[in-house]
């Protein structure tokens, strides 16, 4: 028998990798049900219009059509996050092109789509609001006339087209400016990035004999789907069961949306299973994007490089519905000071409604926008001070024990080491052949941070009769590898190979509660629950064994492979199977461990910071990092090529180093797309101009640098599972400013707007 290898820290292949490479993994559209109907949605052709009426007679008359539902058929039950402003189908008004106004279930997809086209809606077009500036004009058309009446979980000072307004401040920024030797300011703009998970979104809903609904979704949380469907249908959560298929990527875009309730409604109307699988174009038109941002930023420093003041005004374009705008805004505000000890900071933030696709959560959650502005400006400041940009960052960098804005302590913080590591790696890298004529090279380093502790989660561990285990959590693996990571934690504590543990698929009837796969929180939050639940099971195993050996538990130890032995007596041991059988049939009952908790870190310190209407009050556990990119700019065409990237992160403990590296590498290329290519574009009528992969550029392999070097620093967090912190989002966060700074280092051209298209690069070169 091979020696036992501790699963924690091992580069284990994904537990589900085999089914993925042979093609048997079942994603949403791979599932069928007996008698299943197919759904299609009718979408608004207008960005803003009043709905005068519907004529569904032609659609209903089409052979094979089983149900038609419009906004006139549904009770008005507004749902959403902090501000509940959205209905399953448009009611009374449409607010963006593509918005679902009606839905059809039919015996096949072609019939359903044809029927959706036959639905006639009488619209009265209204003036549109398509930009942040337009939304804030005094006489701007209002998207939500009834905004004041909407239910909200806290006051966000919503008014006009303003979804939410918040303020966050520390120190006295007004007094600080006069002490600054150097001040830089600028306006930064970022686009609507589309998640482009490779699997389009979808749902299958079915109804049992008692009318209870089951929704199978490709999603980031079955508990979130369950809540949203129950809210939209106006039924108790006990009447909705949510399950998850394999998920072909999420990135924040597969939280609950209107599609789950539409499928559920049609299933109830027909009594049949109904599949609503979006085409790529529909997915782009009716799901979510990253928030476009307009950020005005000002930073001031003393001659020696000590940054003493930063002031920001962040405005997010939230699109037609609030969704997670208040939260994304709060997080952008929390991140824009950056990982620097700046004593005087004031941040004003707002999110506005426009007649476009709703913006929502997307890997980074406001942080990429904030960091694009903040880290671009750090290089502008370094230039004006005549200080090396890395030295400027090192001079101001947070160290262990320093505070984030709001007062949270950075218990572990290897920012300085991360900055030094990427600089060293860049200097040690082999020299490249010189660039061709007309091309210029440059590199730059940025500092980044993200959190991993927030909201609630739980886990259970059940010992089976043969001494194997079932591990259950509500944490959905959307490709990041949490199934494997959670199993590794459990297996390590029980000293068994991962094959002896099954990690259950999420089902709202069975899985312990978890908020969502979001916020880089799975390893840190659900991982902690897994560790605690496993420790309960381990202790019960020891108690049984102690009774069997008639000794104290302190005299016992777990031995690799599923045995309990008496310390110092090699032959004296009992197998897990015997312990399990004792618990099931003789004494004590089944061995089960459960642990649940809500994030329990420090709260904001109201004596330190002014915090008004901030949509988060309980989050933390900071992962730090530094990212270095090397670019080559074609000064004739304006094309930017990223040659090499080094990215260092203090992850606490890499539970699965291969997964950590995969997260870092993948985030970097998604960040590269954000920096250079990706943007949803709306025309003057509010119509999305590029809702397809042919017209929306997702980075391919030849756009990605061949050299992406993850540098993993392990400095265990005292609260993390085996010391681990999150790493899911941080690697995307700094790439856009790193590339912008590297382009500036290469050419002198400063870009304050992404994506850095060739046109914008040439404009910046001309202006430099």
């Amino acid at each position, binding site marked *: 028998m091979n020696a036992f290898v501790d699963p924690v820290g091992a*580069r284990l*292949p*994904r537990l*589900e*990798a*085999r089914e*993925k*490479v*042979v*093609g*048997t*993994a*079942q*994603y949403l*559209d*791979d599932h*069928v049900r007996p008698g299943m109907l197919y759904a299609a949605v009718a979408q608004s052709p207008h960005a803003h219009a009043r709905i005068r009426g519907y004529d569904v007679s032609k659609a209903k008359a089409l052979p094979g059509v089983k149900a038609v539902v419009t906004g006139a058929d549904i009770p008005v039950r507004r749902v959403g996050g902090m501000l509940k402003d959205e209905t399953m189908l448009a009611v009374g008004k449409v607010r963006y092109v593509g918005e679902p106004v009606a839905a059809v279930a039919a015996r096949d997809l*072609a019939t359903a789509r044809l029927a959706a086209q036959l639905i006639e809606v009488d619209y009265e077009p209204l003036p549109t609001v398509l930009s942040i500036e337009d939304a804030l004009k005094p006489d701007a058309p209002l998207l939500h006339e009834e905004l004041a009446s909407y239910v909200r979980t806290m006051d966000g000072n919503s008014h006009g087209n303003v979804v939410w307004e918040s303020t966050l401040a520390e120190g006295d920024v007004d007094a600080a400016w006069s002490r600054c030797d150097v001040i830089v300011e600028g306006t930064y703009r970022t686009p609507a990035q589309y*998640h*482009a*998970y*490779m*699997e*389009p979104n979808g749902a299958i809903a079915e109804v049992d004999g008692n009318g209870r609904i089951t929704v199978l979704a490709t999603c980031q949380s079955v508990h979130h789907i369950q809540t949203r469907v129950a809210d939209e249908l106006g039924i108790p959560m006990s009447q909705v069961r949510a399950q998850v298929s*394999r*998920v*072909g*990527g999420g*990135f924040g875009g597969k939280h609950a949306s209107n599609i789950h309730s539409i499928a559920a409604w049609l299933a109830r109307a027909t009594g049949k299973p109904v599949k609503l699988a979006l*085409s*790529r174009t529909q997915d782009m038109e009716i799901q979510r994007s990253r928030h476009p941002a307009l950020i005005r930023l000002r930073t001031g420093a003393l001659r020696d490089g000590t940054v003493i003041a930063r002031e920001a005004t962040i405005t997010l374009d939230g699109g037609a519905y609030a969704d997670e705008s208040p939260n994304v805004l709060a997080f952008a505000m929390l991140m824009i000071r950056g990982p620097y000890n700046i004593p005087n900071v004031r941040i004003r933030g707002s999110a506005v409604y426009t007649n476009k696709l709703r913006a929502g959560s997307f890997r980074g959650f406001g942080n990429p926008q904030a960091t694009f502005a903040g880290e671009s400006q750090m290089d502008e400041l370094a230039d004006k001070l005549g200080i090396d940009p890395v030295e400027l960052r090192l001079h101001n960098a947070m160290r262990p024990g320093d505070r984030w804005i709001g007062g949270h302590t950075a218990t572990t913080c290897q920012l300085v080491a991360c900055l030094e590591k990427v600089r060293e790696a860049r200097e040690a890298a082999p020299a490249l052949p010189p660039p061709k004529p007309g091309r210029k090279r440059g590199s730059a380093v940025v500092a980044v941070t993200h959190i991993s502790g927030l909201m609630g989660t739980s886990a259970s561990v059940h010992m089976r009769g043969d001494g194997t285990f079932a591990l259950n959590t509500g944490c959905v693996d*959307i*490709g*990041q*590898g949490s199934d494997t990571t959670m199993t590794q934690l459990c297996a390590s504590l029980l000293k068994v190979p991962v094959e002896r543990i099954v990690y259950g698929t999420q089902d709202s009837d069975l899985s312990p509660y978890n908020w969502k796969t979001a916020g880089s929180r799975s390893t840190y939050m659900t991982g902690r629950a897994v560790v605690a639940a496993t420790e309960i099971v381990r202790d019960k195993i020891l108690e049984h064994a102690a009774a069997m050996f008639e000794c104290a538990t302190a005299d016992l130890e777990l031995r690799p492979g599923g045995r309990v032995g008496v310390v110092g007596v090699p032959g004296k041991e009992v197998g897990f199977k015997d312990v399990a059988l004792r618990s099931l049939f003789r004494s004590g009952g089944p061995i089960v461990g459960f642990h649940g908790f809500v994030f329990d870190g420090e709260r904001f310190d109201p004596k330190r910071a002014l915090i008004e209407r901030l949509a988060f009050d309980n989050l933390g556990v900071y992962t730090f990092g530094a990212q270095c990119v090397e670019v080559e700019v074609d000064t004739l065409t304006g094309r930017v090529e990223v040659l090499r990237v080094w990215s260092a992160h203090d992850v606490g403990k890499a539970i699965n180093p*291969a*997964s950590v*590296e*995969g997260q870092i*590498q*993948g*985030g*970097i*290329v*998604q960040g590269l797309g954000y920096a250079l290519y990706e943007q949803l574009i709306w025309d003057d009528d509010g119509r999305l101009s590029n809702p*397809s*992969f*042919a017209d929306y550029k*997702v980075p*391919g*392999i*030849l756009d*990605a640098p*061949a050299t*992406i070097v993850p540098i993993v620093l392990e400095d265990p967090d005292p609260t993390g599972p085996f010391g681990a912190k999150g790493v899911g989002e941080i690697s995307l966060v700094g790439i856009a400013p790193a590339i912008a700074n590297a382009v500036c280092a290469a050419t002198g051209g400063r870009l304050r707007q992404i994506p850095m298209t060739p046109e914008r690069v040439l404009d910046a070169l001309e202006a430099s």
Partner: protein
Amino acid sequence: MADTLSYELRINGEVLSVASPATATLLDVLRYQLGMTGSKRGCNQGVCGACTVLLDGVPVRGCLTLAANVGERAVTTVEGMSQGGTLSRVQQALLDAGAIQCGFCTPGVVVTLEAFLRDHPKPSADEVRHALSGNLCRCSGYVKIVEAAVIAAGAAP
């Protein structure tokens, strides 16, 4: 509705009878008639590569290939890549290299690399990158996929 055609397809060594509309793509037939859902629909316009299958050993887009035009050509899908439960060298290398994340692009990557390595037994990493230029992956940053291809090339076929 379009006229229905009846024809045969040679898929992974089996001859299968199919009746489909003339407009049905090979991807439609594989996924929705034959229940072979390994080939994925990511964009349905030939960009993402998740539907890549082989026709007589040549990678093609399942979503851009009319099923009724396939004729006598042998279709190989991801389901045909592992023999008797044994993973192919490409599949094994993707698994070992940690190149699997969400997995939705993986079938297209497997099929593309199988054909490429058959024709280019000892490729450079740069040649691998060009071979995969038609396969989008949103999770991995492509690094470990290239590493896997190099590992697979080093393994016995």
